[in-house]
Structures are given as C-alpha cells and as structure tokens.
C-alpha cells in the first residue's frame, strides 16, 4: 500500500537577480566562458574527479554540456546558448559572453526592466538592420569563385580552438581538407531545390594529423581479423551492386518481444524461431540478388555464415550515424522488419572495394552519384581528436550556412568594436520621434546604449588573455591589441601591428584610442571599398548567420533574465 505524503509548498524567490548566490554563480559562469574565448583562450579540464575521462576543451558546446548548473537563472542562460549552438554550431562562446556582459551592464544602470528591454530591443534591431544592409562596414561578401575567403573562414574557426593541438602546417592542411570535403557534397547540377550531400567523419585516433584525408564515397573500417575472409562482390551488372540496409538488429535476439511476461512451453525455443526467420530473410536476400548487406547493429553469426556461403558480403555494426548517409548515397530504404521485404527498399552501389589508408583497412562504398564523402580524421590522442572533430563539424556547418547567405563578418574583435562605434554614433543622433515611440528619455536611451556598447566591447576584450591592452581606431572602429604598460606619451602607431581581423596594417592617420574610454562618436568607415580586401591572405572571419543569431539570442536572453521577478520552484 502506498502512503500519501502531503505536498511540500513551492519555493518562491522574488527578484532573483538581486540575490548574492545568483550573481555569484553568474559571475563564475561568465568567468569560465570569457577565459575560453579566442585563439589564445585558456582551456578547461572537464572530468568527474573519479578517474573518468578527462576532456580538455574551450568549446562552448562541451563546456555547457559538461557543466551542470542548478540555478534556474543559469539554466535559462545555458539553455538559450545550447539551443543557438544546436542550430548554428558556431559563436556559442560569443553568445554566452555577450549575454553575461549584458546582464552585468544592464543591472548596473538599475532601470525599470521594461525600459531596458524596450531600448535594448531597439538597439538590437538597429544592429541587425545595419549588419544586413549594404552599407554595413564590417562584412564581406563571400566569393565562391575563389577559395581564399572560404579558407579564411575555416582557418579562423580552427585557430580559435587551441585544444586541437595543431601547428600551422597542420591547421592549413585540415582547413583545406574540410573545404575539399564540403565541395564534394555540393551537387553538380543546380535545380530549384538544392540538397547538400553529407560529409562523414571517420575516426582514426592516435595517428598524426597529416595522415588525415578526404575520399568521395563512404569508408567503413574493416576489423583487422575479418580481412582474411573477403571475397569479390556479387554484381547485378558491371556497374551495379544491389544492397540492403538494415536499421534493426539482426542478432537473433528477441528485442521486439514487448514488455509483458512471456511464457514459453518447454521444448520450444524462441531463439531457434527467430534464427529461422533470419535465415528465411537471408534466403530472400540471396534470391533477390543482393550483393551487400549492411546492418546498423549486429548480424547473427549463422546468418552471416549463410550469406557468405552464397557470396553475399555483410557489414555489420556500422552505427546509427552511418545509416542516413548510406541511405542517401545508395537510395536504399533502411529496413526495420524481418519479414515482408519489398524489392523497392534495395539500393544500389557502383562499386565496392577494400582499401588501405593510414595502416587501416576500409570498405570503400562508391555510389553512382557522389554526394557523400568521408573525412578520415586523425589526431594524436583521444581528447585532441574529440576537439578537432567538433571543430570540423562546426566548420562544415558554417560553410553550409555561408552558401545559403554568402556573407562573412570580420573576426578578431573587429565586428564588435565596429558595431559599438556604429551604435554610439547612431544613438547620439537619435530623432525624438523614435524616443517617443519607445517611450523613454534621451538620457535613458543613451545610458542603455552605452551599456550595450560596453558589452559588445567587452566581448572583443575577452580575446586578450595575456594582459595586453586593447585600442580602437577612430576611422574604421577596428580592434587593435598592444602590449600593456606603454608610456602615456608614446605614439600609438609605434605599438600597433595589425587590426584583429588582419585587414588593416598600421597606418599613421588612424587616430587610436583605448577601447571603452569615452570618445566623440564617429561614423565608422566601411572596409568593403578597400580594393585589396579579397586579396589579403589570412583574414580572420566569422560566420555571418551564426553571429547575427548569437547577437539576437544574447540580447533576448539577457532581457528575459532581467525581467525575471519571481522564481517558483517545485520542492516535491
């Protein structure tokens, strides 16, 4: 008999942001994400303290996935960022840092949250309008005729994650491979509905990075000890191999038996019954002239033996991640039943070979229409491999986003400082009509705008981890770093080298000032009228789509957090 307990009352906290524990937790989280940002960002060891796997990373997805925050305010923040990452892969740290800074800076001005929300929404839309307009001075259009910009984009993503442990040669090698793999997934003929192919990452750990490679088609590793029993594949015609793809287990167990108790009479073996069913399935496959059977899970040894005796090649335990590309590449429908196979579910391959890369053996599945490719990704150890794999996936995703919207933003802090200069100028010349529409005073607007710009600049400053000082120029509004402790009377141009994104070199007339120091608002000049933009090597670029979304998510989330007046927690 169950006992009924009285329900505990819910716990209600008002004005959660004013509580010490919340602001403390928020500042710890903010400290973690800030210290990870950029190519010289510091790494974090994530582990359970009990001998579990140690992950060394500076990636937002790994950090936020590994951190288990309990406070609802922090949960709200991490959930928004995670959601952004799941949609865009890139700019996770940017979003998290900006959101934390906005909360900190908005809290400091201590206005009614509805006023802050209204003004910051307006500021956000000014930013987005500017970024999306032709006049935007911190974006480049990506030219798909040359690989230079694309390569810069990929290289910037790789360089921002030092835990991959790549040196310069390796970084540019991997960048080229990622780009090559991406190009292999673009269809040759463009119709109205363009569907990009897939790049499958084949893990090869403990090897040198330079042994990585890209191949069209799919590569599936063959366990060393299966090599002895390989035979030529059975073909329907010289260039067609019929193939069946199973996404259920063919191991002969009773996984689909259901939940309730099953009672069997002695002498009846369910196992034998299932095996008979499997062998019948095998018979049908042989009759249908299938040459290759691929299974996501395990194939029963007896079925394997039967198929082998009839010259059918079996590949099992390929894993869930392979099913989609396999089905896409061969046109086969993943089969989820042991009986009533329809002949339409079979797919076809052009060729099946065995090949030897990085001293491992692979099945090489070659489709008729190549839209699937395999990136054999090597790195020296498990954790560096994990980090690199994630970066490669991010880069591939960024390239996909860029092909949809062929724009890139200047990286290395330049977009943030440029945008801040733009907003400063814009807010100083605001018409009264707009103020009326938002229902706030000029001073209120100015204060919120300042906090907004400080937050943007704060993100840029987080790129510096070695006590350098950040300057900005009063012409383009770009980001410049210098060694700290310079004498007050020195000439700035002796100290600076290049701006953060690498587009501008040291020029005498740039009129530098220390970032976040009050200065007269100016209209930041655009970089796009610079003729040599696309000729410059090694630009630092960011994904346009991901950064715009990150900006939006950060502002919206910060507004939401500021707006929290009560937290009601169920104590049961």
């Amino acid at each position, binding site marked *: 008999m169950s006992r009924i307990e009285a329900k505990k009352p819910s716990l209600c906290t008002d004005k959660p942001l004013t509580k010490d524990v919340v602001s403390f937790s928020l500042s710890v989280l903010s400290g973690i994400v800030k210290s990870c940002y950029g190519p010289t960002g510091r790494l974090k060891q994530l582990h359970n*303290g009990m001998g579990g796997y140690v992950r060394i990373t500076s990636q937002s997805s790994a950090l936020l996935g590994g951190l288990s925050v309990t406070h609802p305010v922090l949960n709200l923040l991490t959930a928004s960022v995670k959601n952004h990452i799941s949609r865009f892969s890139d700019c996770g740290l940017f979003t998290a840092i900006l959101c934390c800074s906005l909360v900190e800076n908005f809290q400091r001005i201590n206005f009614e949250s509805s006023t802050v929300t209204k003004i910051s929404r307006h500021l956000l839309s000014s930013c987005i309008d500017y970024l999306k307009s032709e006049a935007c001075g911190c974006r480049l259009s990506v030219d798909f005729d040359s690989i230079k910009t694309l390569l810069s984009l990929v290289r910037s993503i790789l360089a921002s994650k030092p835990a991959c442990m790549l040196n310069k040669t390796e*970084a540019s090698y991997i960048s080229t491979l990622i780009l090559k793999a991406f190009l292999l997934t673009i269809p040759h003929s463009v119709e109205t509905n363009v569907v990009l192919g897939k790049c499958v990452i084949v893990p090869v750990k403990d090897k040198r990075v330079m042994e990585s490679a890209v191949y069209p088609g799919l590569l599936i590793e063959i366990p060393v000890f299966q090599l002895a029993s390989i035979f030529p594949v059975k073909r329907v015609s010289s260039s067609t191999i019929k193939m069946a793809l199973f996404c259920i287990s063919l191991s002969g167990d009773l996984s689909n038996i259901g939940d309730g108790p099953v009672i069997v009479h002695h002498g009846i073996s369910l196992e034998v019954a299932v095996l008979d069913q499997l062998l019948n399935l095998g018979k049908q496959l042989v009759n249908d002239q299938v040459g290759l059977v691929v299974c996501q899970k395990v194939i029963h040894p007896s079925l394997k033996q039967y198929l082998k005796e009839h010259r059918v090649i079996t590949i099992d335990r390929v894993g869930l991640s392979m099913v989609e590309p396999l089905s896409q590449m061969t046109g086969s429908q993943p089969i989820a039943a042991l009986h009533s196979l329809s002949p339409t579910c079979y797919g076809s391959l052009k060729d099946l070979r065995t090949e030897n890369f990085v001293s491992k053996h692979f099945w090489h599945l070659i489709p008729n229409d190549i839209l699937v490719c395999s990136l054999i990704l090597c790195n020296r150890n498990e954790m560096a491999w994990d980090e690199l794999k994630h970066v490669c996936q991010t880069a591939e995703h960024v390239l996909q986003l860029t092909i949809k919207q062929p724009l890139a933003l200047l990286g290395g802090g330049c977009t943030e400082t440029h945008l801040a200069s733009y907003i400063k100028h814009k807010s100083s010349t605001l018409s009264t009509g707009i103020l009326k529409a938002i229902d706030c005073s000029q001073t209120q607007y100015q204060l919120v705008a300042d906090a907004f710009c400080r937050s943007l600049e704060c993100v840029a400053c987080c790129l510096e981890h*070695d006590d*350098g000082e950040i300057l900005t120029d009063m012409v383009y509004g770009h980001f410049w770093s210098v060694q700290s402790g310079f004498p007050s009377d020195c000439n700035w141009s002796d100290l600076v080298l290049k701006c953060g994104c690498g587009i501008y070199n040291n020029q005498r007339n740039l009129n530098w000032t220390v970032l976040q120091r009050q200065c007269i608002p100016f209209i930041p000049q655009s970089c796009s009228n610079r003729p040599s933009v696309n000729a410059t090597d090694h630009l630092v670029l960011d994904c346009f789509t991901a950064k715009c979304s990150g900006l939006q998510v950060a502002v919206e989330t910060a507004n939401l957090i500021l707006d929290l007046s009560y937290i009601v927690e169920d104590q049961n």
Partner: protein
Amino acid sequence: EIMAFRNVNRRRHIGLQQLSSLASIGRTLLGPVKSYKFIVDVSTSESALTCSAVRLLESLDLTSAVGQLLNETIQAQNKEYKTGMTTLLFLVGAWSNAVLECLQQNVPLSLVVSVMSEGLNSCSEKVKCLQLSVHDLYKGPKSVPIHFSSRSLGSQITENIPVSKEECFPESLHSHQASPCDPHDRCLNSHLCISDNITPSLVEPVGNKTMPAVLGSSLIASNFNKRTKLTHSRYFNTPEKSHCPLQTDNFGSAPIRPGACPYEFNDFGQLAMALSHGNQSSMKLVQDIFRCQQQIAERKGSSQFNIAEVVTCCLPGLSENYSCVCPGYITLVSPEKATVTKQLRDRPLQILLIDGDLREKYRHLGFNRPSNVSTISESVALQESSSESIWINCALDILIQSKVNLILVKGNVCENLMERCILNNILIINPVTDTVLHAFEKGIGVQLVTYLSQVNSHYVGSGVWVDFWKTLELDNKVPVSIKAEGIHLVTAVLCSTVTSKMQVTEDQFWTCAYRLYHALTDQKVFPGGGAVELLCLSHLQKLEEQSLKQADKYPSGELHMSSCWLTKSLTQYKSVVLKALASGWHQYLSRVMYNTASYESEFEASTFIDHHLKKATDCSSPSSYILKEFNKGIKVMDDVDLSIKQEEALKIYDNVTSKVEAWRRALDLVLLVLQTDAEIITGPKRNQLLNSHTSSEFTFV
C-alpha cells in the same frame, strides 16, 4: 549534478608542477642501462618489477586529471609505436620545468605555446637531414642469410628447428656459465639480469626521489642506483654467443670496420643490433623471427616483417638460454591435456576454430537476452540442470561426427564439456588470441565459427600437427606446439629464470620487434647515440641567434595570431623560450649519459655535451659534423672510453617516426596543461570535495 570549479593557473602553475613531479619518477628508466623499480602495493603486499614507463604508469593509481592525461599520452604512444615512451615521459618532465621557468620570467603564456610548438616543428624538419635510408644500410631480404635447409616441406623443417637447437644447449649453457668473469658478458647481462650485479633492496624514498604527493597511491619506489660501469652497452657484439643454428649466420664472423666505410653495412644483423639498444638477446630472437618469415616468404613471395603474426610464449623459471623462435604456435597445457596430446601426436589432425566461448549460455556480442521470457514444463524431470547436459551431448555428437581432434577456442570452455572431450581424445586449447585464431584461419583456409551448430565439413580444417615442445614441465604445465603447413605464425619462446622478470623480458622482446618493424616500414633510421638531439640543440641555438638579429623586424605569419601584439613582442621573449625548449633535450642527453654510468654526475655529462655542441655550432654545417662524428663512432650519448677498439664499436640507430612523435606528444601534453586554467569537476565527487580539507581551493556553483 553539481559542479565544482578550481582555478588551476595560479602564479605557479599547479598542473605543470604535478606533471613535472609525475614525470620525474621515470628518470632512471632512460637509456640502455635501466634501474629497475619495485612497485609495492602496501594493502595487498603485491609487488611488481618494472623498468618501462608504460608499466610504471599502469601500476600507479593516477586519479588526478593531469596524471590521467599523462597516462593516456603514454598509452597512446605505446599503442601506436611500442617505443619512445620513456623518452616521452622524460621530456614531459623536462619541458614542464622549462615552461615553469618561462612563466617565472613573465613570458606571456600564449607566446610560450606558439614559440615552443613552432620551435619543435622546425627541429623536426631539421633533423630530417640526418635520416639514413634503410635501403642503404641493408639491401633487402636477399641479404638476409638463411641457414635453414631449403627443402620445401614445411612441417619437416619446422620440426627440425627446435630439435637442432636443443642439441646446442649444453654447449651454450656451458659457455654462458663459464663467462661471468668475461667483462663483455657481464656488461651484457648487467641490465638484463639483476640477480647478478644489482641487488634489489627496498629503499625508503629520500630527498628528491620522494614520490609526489599528487599520486596519492600506495607506491613506494626505490632507485637501485648501484652504478655498474658499462663499457659499451648498445653496440656490444658477441659472436661467441651464437648458440643456435638459426643464429649462426655470418653475423659477427666477417670483420667490419665501421669507421672506414660508413654505409657498407649490408648485413641485416648489423641493422638489427644497432636497433637493439642493449637488448641483444631479445633482438637476436627478433632477427630469427624475421629470418623464419623470410624463409616462409620465399615460397609465398612477400618479404615484409609481418609483426602481426608473431606471438610469445612465456616460460618463467627456465634459463634464458632456452629462449628461441619456433614456427607455429606454442602454448602451455595442463597434464590432462598433455595426455591427449600424447595420443594425438604423429598424425594429422582435424581442427575447429571457435570465435567465442564454448558454453551453453554463451551468446555472440550484440545478442540481448530477454528478461521477461520464462519457460514452463509439464514434467519435473526436465530441469534447468539437464539442459546443459543435453547441450554437452549435442556438442560432443557434432565434434565426433565431424571427426574433430583439436579445437582452438577464443574464450572460456564449459568444464564438463572439457572433461568429456579429454575422455574422447579431443584436445581443446583456450583461451587463444585473435592473432593465433586468424593465423590458422588464413593458413589452412578454414573459417571460424561462433556456435557448434554452425559446424559442417567446410568449417573443419585438416593437416594440423600437435606435439610436445621439448620434454619440459613447468608449474605442472607442459608446452605443446601446434603446426600446420601454410601457417605463417611464429612463436617466440621467452624464458627467464627470475619469474618476476618475465613481464620485463616480454616487454623488451616486443620493444625490439617493433623497433625493427618501424625501421623497415619507415625505410629510414636516425643515427642514435644522441646525434639527433645534438642537432636539435645546435639548430635551436641558430634560431636563437637569428631571433636576436631580427630584433628590429618581426617575422610575419610566424604565429597563429599574426595580428596580435604578441607578434610584435616576439623578439623580446623568443630566445628565452627557445632556450627552454633546448633545455629539455639537454637534460635528456645528460641524463642518458649519466645513466649509462660513464659520468660521475649529470653536470659532467652536461659539460661534455656543451663541448660537442660548440664544435657542431662552429661548423658551417652542424649536421655533417654530427654525421661525421657518428660515423667515427663517437657518441655523445656514450662514453668515449678509449679502451674500446674502434672495430668493436657498432652503430646505434633509432626509429625516426616514433622518436619525433614522442617529442611532439610530450610537448603537446605540456602545452595543453599549460593552457589549462581551470578544472571543472562535475558529478557526485563535488560533495566529497566540499567536505575535504582542500575545499578552499574550489569554487562551488
């Protein structure tokens, strides 16, 4: 559930300090003369003897994150190359200290990372000019002298080998026992056989040898640093020790003058010995394996060193003189099985290969047993216990019907079935490794089965022979050999009188095997004896000078962050960081020299290195100076004892890829830890930390 957060990167980097103290335990393992370590588990009083970095780290209880990272790095190198782990461990320690030094001098952390990694990269490129082509050193398998009789019937030849070797035993045993006063032999054995020269004793840790507190394990390590004077450890040649027909080749009999003609070592034996790094006896076995494979290859047409078809069989308690190489599979069996063996010898057998367990309840991987199925039966007699006997009867029927005499099983075998098989003169060998199973699969062209129900005539192989391997009995077990024509498998029988040294002996054998294997797959070797490290030192000196000369202009594109102020201030710090990188190799060289007992102190060794380094740097081409010195037989790493005649001095070679990779992995680990500024601990451990005395170090969120 909840997380704890610790800021690692205080003024003095905790992680690097941990790394440095962990790595320091491996210092005495460097070089050809190793001091053994006893690892004692205080709670169980179990102890292990070790002299390899891998085994040492395996035995430690490394719960700290840094300890785990170190272990993972060493294991990854071991998995991939099987050599270079001690070098890796040492350099991790040396470079951690060097980096800590840089931090003390306020070098920006990001600069340490990029200059060190570019510096190593540059050195790895530079040392390529020292690579020697294996092809030049050894003209392919044709030059491998084969002293088998070349009659082509495999089973006869294979049976000849152990027998004829046995005939040689008395002589070789005699020669060995007679030689302890022979200085050469003593040297050879000094690091192979501790019972002779080094008396292990448990020493309480003292001074800087104190175990780092971070280990938190029950470890007492002791350094048996009783220094044995070693005259010429690595390139010691013992022609009088060839005691086996496999080993009597022209190795050693044709006098070679290395000083005169540097590249005329076309003898395979010379290459192998140069790679043995003091483990001559192990390398001799490896050479025999290679020859054995060449002999098989003559019929099959491949000429590679096939390390995948080599297995070892350890016979602890037997004299090392019994160590030898035999074609086929050799393993120990129980006396009951020996009785079956007696019945089965002298006739061809039918074999079955089982890829799993031989038990009623065994199911293949991926088979999930349903938990909700229950069986009901009408009669009480049919109980669970009888189902096994039904299965056994059925299994036995299958075996008898298919006339199987011999079964190799990968996993466990049901006790009752085993007994019934013995009664029926069916020999079951288990557990057997994948290597062995698949060698038989390939060799006799029969496929593996998982269940006996799969067996039909296609799955039973024939033409297999079983016999006793010598007439020995060890710990109530008898070695038997299983052979078949077409089998490429070669077993290295390893013996050691000191049982606790068995593991060490086996490890040393594999190290030698992999060194030779890598040399043949890389097709190139480095000159050993410190030549490569010396070139790195001289190259780094050059880079340092260049960086000072270029003080006014910055090298563009040298760093990842070419736009950053760090690029501009590069010249200010570059030489400090390059010096730190160099100090790692410098310490490595002096430690090896000190460990080989040629120098009284590491300082003395260090002076010697500086002397050669200056000479090399003064040369217009340091690499050619170093190669010249190498060919003269003067090694930085070894003593230049004038008592050694030039003729006796053999070359030392090192593997190329594994060495360079060990450097890279060591530096990568140090730089990873350096860049880490916080440890995030999630999960239930948090509450323990909250209540522990170290809780002040953590931030709890």
